[in-house]
């Protein structure tokens, strides 16, 4: 990743790519990957009184509070963020295949794999007393697990056709789950070990897989990290580059729990 100073906006935050205005998601990832104090301060300023950290797009509210909670320094701001995370959940409609709530990408929509992984990670590492929501997240991962293990964006089947897992989402789910559901994680990790090479054309995918393989104690972690280091280091986008940083330094919020 190019030096942070070349990417940081004047307000201290980070956009999804160089030149874009600061946003909560990319700023939180920089705060997490680089323990960047100015990024944390940007998040503190972006936090609403209800504890949430969001991006608004018309009537659509993209909630980044779980990431924000993980990125904030310990203190009242983080606690308010965690309070919001506990109370924020997906909306279930009439789909009989959807029972667990998890966390959604945006307000009043279904829970999905990646936001649920971040919600779970925030609670299991920072608010383990939130057992109901932690249990709900595990239930979502059980409900959405693909046949043979692993996860895609969060749909097990469509009209009776099994949908295959993806590497990036499986890796994020595993990092969210940690040791909470050993058999579920074991199937996911086994699929990840089989599947990561097949999707290694993407920097984000490869970096995320390297983090999850390392966190899961896989003997393939070194190979994934090596494959990542062999890639050209042209900047991709802020979030992908933060994952590269976390993979290279073998660090991330999942190791705190």
């Amino acid at each position, binding site marked *: 990743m190019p030096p942070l100073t070349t990417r940081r906006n004047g307000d201290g935050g980070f*956009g*999804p*790519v160089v*030149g*874009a*205005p600061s*946003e909560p*998601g*990319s700023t939180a990832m920089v705060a997490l990957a680089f323990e960047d104090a100015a990024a944390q301060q940007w998040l503190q300023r972006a936090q609403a009184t209800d504890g949430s950290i969001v*991006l*608004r*797009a*018309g*009537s*659509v509210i*993209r909630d980044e509070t779980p990431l924000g909670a993980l990125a904030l320094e310990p203190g009242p701001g983080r606690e308010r963020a965690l309070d919001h995370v506990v109370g924020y959940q997906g*909306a279930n409609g009439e789909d009989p295949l959807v029972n667990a709530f998890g966390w*959604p*990408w*945006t307000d*009043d*929509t*279904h829970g*999905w794999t*990646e*936001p649920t992984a971040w919600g779970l990670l925030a609670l299991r590492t920072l608010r383990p007393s939130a057992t109901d929501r932690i249990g709900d997240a595990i239930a979502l991962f059980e409900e959405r697990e693909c046949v043979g293990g692993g996860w*895609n*964006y969060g749909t097990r089947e*469509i*009209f*009776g*056709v099994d*949908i*295959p897992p*993806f590497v*990036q*989402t499986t890796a994020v789910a595993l990092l969210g789950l940690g040791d909470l559901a050993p058999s579920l994680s074991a199937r996911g990790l086994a699929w990840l070990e089989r599947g990561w090479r097949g*999707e290694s*054309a*993407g*920097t*984000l*995918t490869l970096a995320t897989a390297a983090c999850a393989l390392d966190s899961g104690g896989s003997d393939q972690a070194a190979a994934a990290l090596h494959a990542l280091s062999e890639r050209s280091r042209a900047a*991709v*986008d*802020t*979030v*992908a580059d933060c994952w590269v940083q976390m993979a290279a330094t073998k660090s991330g919020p999942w190791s705190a729990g």
Partner: protein
Amino acid sequence: MSPHHALPRRTFLARGAGAAAAFAGAAVIGLELRERGKSGLWDPSAFQPPTGARVAVIPRTTYSGDITGTIRDGLVAIDASFDGARVVLKPNFVEYDPGSVVNTDPRVVAGAVEAIRRMGAESVTVAEGPGHRRDTEYVAAASGLLEALRAVDAPFADLNVAPATPYALRSFYSSLDALWIPTLLQDADIVVSMPKMKTHHWAGVTLSLKNCFGCLPGRVYGWPKNALHWVGIDNAIVDVAGAIRPSYAIIDGIVGMQGNGPIDGDPIASGVLVFGDDPVATDTVTTRMMGMDPVKIPYLNEAARFLGEGDPDHIEQRGEDPAAYTTSFAPAPGATFAATDTSGY
């Protein structure tokens, strides 16, 4: 730009963006308009009645050979003009699944780049925001799109992370009120929607209008862009397409997808490329060519009220007779409402 646009694309979008600030936090305005009834579903000053639509069906049974020439033929047939324009091509790469025909074929995309350059465009950029995968680099690389674009030295933009600004909607079918639209698209003179000819399990068909979903950044709307479904997928298609306003459509029907689309259907060789200077007209003709009834596709019906031409009698047909190239697609489960009807062009 499309002759149906009363305002040049950039002027139209700039006015919308300027209005966004006043619109922010005023969701009640959209709600009020929706409750006012059909007459309040779009801003009539932003959408002028269509004055003519041209659609050309060009037979093509293979992705090999001179596809650039075929695409140029199709664009010339609809009198497309790209002189000095900054053009963005928006293909459909919602995700990548080896062996499937889920995406616009990369050779069609590269062929369009070359054809449009030869027709005088100042620049041609290919842009997509995959709806199911956060890792756009993976989708573009694994699908062969990056390699195809490299061969014609064309830039690719990841719309999921591209800078974006709010745009206040000028149609009000959904409760979205405003959309974050990448500035690349707002600044373009011409956007060309380049979908695959596919069935869709909720919408019936996914063509040049539905393809506009991929213009919205996943970092805002998620993977998938579930918010667009929760407001009613038909409503969202109309509003998003009304914001993006593609000037032209090029539909890849050389091999389409039938059945459990948009991602798990089966290939069907339909042997055509369909070109149009009006996305509504192009989708209407293509839907019939898929053996389905456009009248039964709710979002097409609504889009035809203000966004483009849906009346076959007012669509000028160029190229081959679409009826001669109709291939009955199996509808997607969940979308049998688009029941077969091949009558009348």
